[in-house]
């Protein structure tokens, strides 16, 4: 009964699929240029059942998540220090601006030369892409904490780590979560780029080999899987946000109030 609510979306999807199918069937384009939805469905069934898709998707997911974690674990502390100490920001800015001006993706071949075609170089590429937006968001999140809240913690004689725990972390969290949402999708891009250049597994690798064999239906399947992965990561971050940031979300009011204890 609840599917009514999604009627516009379902209709739009159906019309899109029909159009695709129509064009693929009657345009006279060869299959290796535009496979029909039916071809893609059969291909998807095959790679899912044979376990091929899982193997490659898992490889990519590992790179993406490890890259995210690595990028975060450098960006968060560094961003915090830069927000707190002007000297550090001044000293590091030239490097950061330069590193941001250089497209990280173009750095990928170099990283693969240095660190080989294995997992580590992919993780590094993801981490590099994730690093900058997370760093900026950390600096902004910490800097924008109202000085009155800082005064409060000073009056209460909080140590630096108490200030971090009771004030800076929760106060910066909304901005950090915003950065993480962007970072999660960027990390997927990083992994795919790395796999395009040199790899023996991963969805990027799958796309590359399928292209070489003119197996366009498989390219479509891999693209779909990548999209799904990026969306799931995004959704996971949103879920985390909803839990951690319930205090600023009116919609979640009822679920949050815990009485007694």
């Amino acid at each position: 009964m609840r599917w009514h609510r999604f009627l516009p979306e379902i209709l739009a999807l159906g019309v899109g699929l029909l159009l695709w199918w129509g064009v693929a069937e009657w345009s006279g384009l060869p299959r290796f240029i535009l496979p029909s939805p039916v071809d893609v469905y059969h291909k998807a069934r095959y790679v899912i059942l044979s376990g091929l898709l899982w193997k490659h998707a898992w490889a990519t997911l590992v790179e993406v998540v490890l890259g995210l974690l690595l990028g975060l674990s450098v960006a968060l502390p560094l961003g915090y220090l830069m927000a707190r100490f002007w000297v550090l920001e001044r000293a590091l800015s030239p490097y950061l601006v330069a590193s941001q001006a250089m497209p990280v993706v173009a750095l990928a071949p170099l990283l693969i030369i240095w660190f080989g075609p294995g997992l580590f170089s992919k993780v590094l590429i993801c981490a590099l892409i994730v690093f900058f937006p997370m760093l900026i968001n950390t600096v902004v999140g910490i800097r924008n904490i109202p000085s009155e809240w800082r005064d409060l913690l000073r009056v209460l004689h909080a140590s630096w780590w108490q200030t971090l725990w009771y004030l800076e972390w929760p106060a910066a969290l909304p901005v950090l979560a915003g950065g993480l949402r962007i970072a999660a999708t960027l990390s997927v891009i990083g992994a795919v780029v790395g796999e395009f250049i040199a790899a023996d597994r991963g969805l990027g690798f799958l796309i590359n080999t399928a292209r070489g064999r003119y197996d366009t239906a498989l390219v479509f399947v891999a693209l779909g899987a990548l999209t799904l992965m990026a969306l799931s990561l995004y959704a996971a971050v949103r879920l985390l946000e909803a839990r951690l940031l319930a205090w600023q979300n009116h919609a979640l009011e009822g679920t949050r109030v815990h009485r007694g204890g």
Partner: protein
Amino acid sequence: MSAVCPAGKALLWVHDLSLAYRNGGQPFWVLQDLNFQVPEGGFLAVLGPSGCGKSTLLRVLAGLLPPTRGQVCYASRPLAAPQPEIGLVFQHANLLPWRTVLQNITLPLEIRGVTRREAEARAREMVALVGLEGFEHTLPRDLSGGMAQRVALARALVYRPRLLLLDEPFSPLDTLTREQMWEELLRIWRHTGVTILMVTHSMTEALVLADRVLVLSPRPARLRLDLTVPFPRPRTEEIRFTPLFGELVRRIREAILSG
């Protein structure tokens, strides 16, 4: 800064205190040559026109701002940084929005390493004291201005400071609640021996509560009047309708208005 603080009974000793904010170029003078003392257990009210520097004075006395000139001594020692014994209630409640009422009140205790159980018990006492039972788990965004301000007061009282600095704590309250809060504050003051310095805009509030009233001039704030309030305690409602009360109001008003 010379570091001579007289050993004496004054808990707070302010000597030739001047303060300027420095935003880039010119110093912006806010406090000018203030001299006064607050004895331990005293109750001082500070009055002055808006923008004259009252909140700035409290920030200095809380150890948040170093004096530009002159000296502030707390308990016979130069005041250089915030002290654990000093409580400050900010002009705008300044609650942390991700913490519930109860959690905002337990914050000072958590920072002090008090156990969770004891912190909650003490916070609940404070909630009752400021009349907010039933709102323990409410978030600040769902409180009215007056309720938020009472939470801020509870947060400052919960760790039993020796000196309590209050920045217009009762301004957002209605007359009735405000007078109830006066009673509560006086009760706490009597029972704990806490020293109170309170900024207010209300002459009545100052005269009903305080031992002494300081009147500041427009910015830069100088001391215009240091008035001892002669009413005996406990004070009754009636004092407000005595000729003496009227006379004191007249003197304060004159001090504020005199060019």
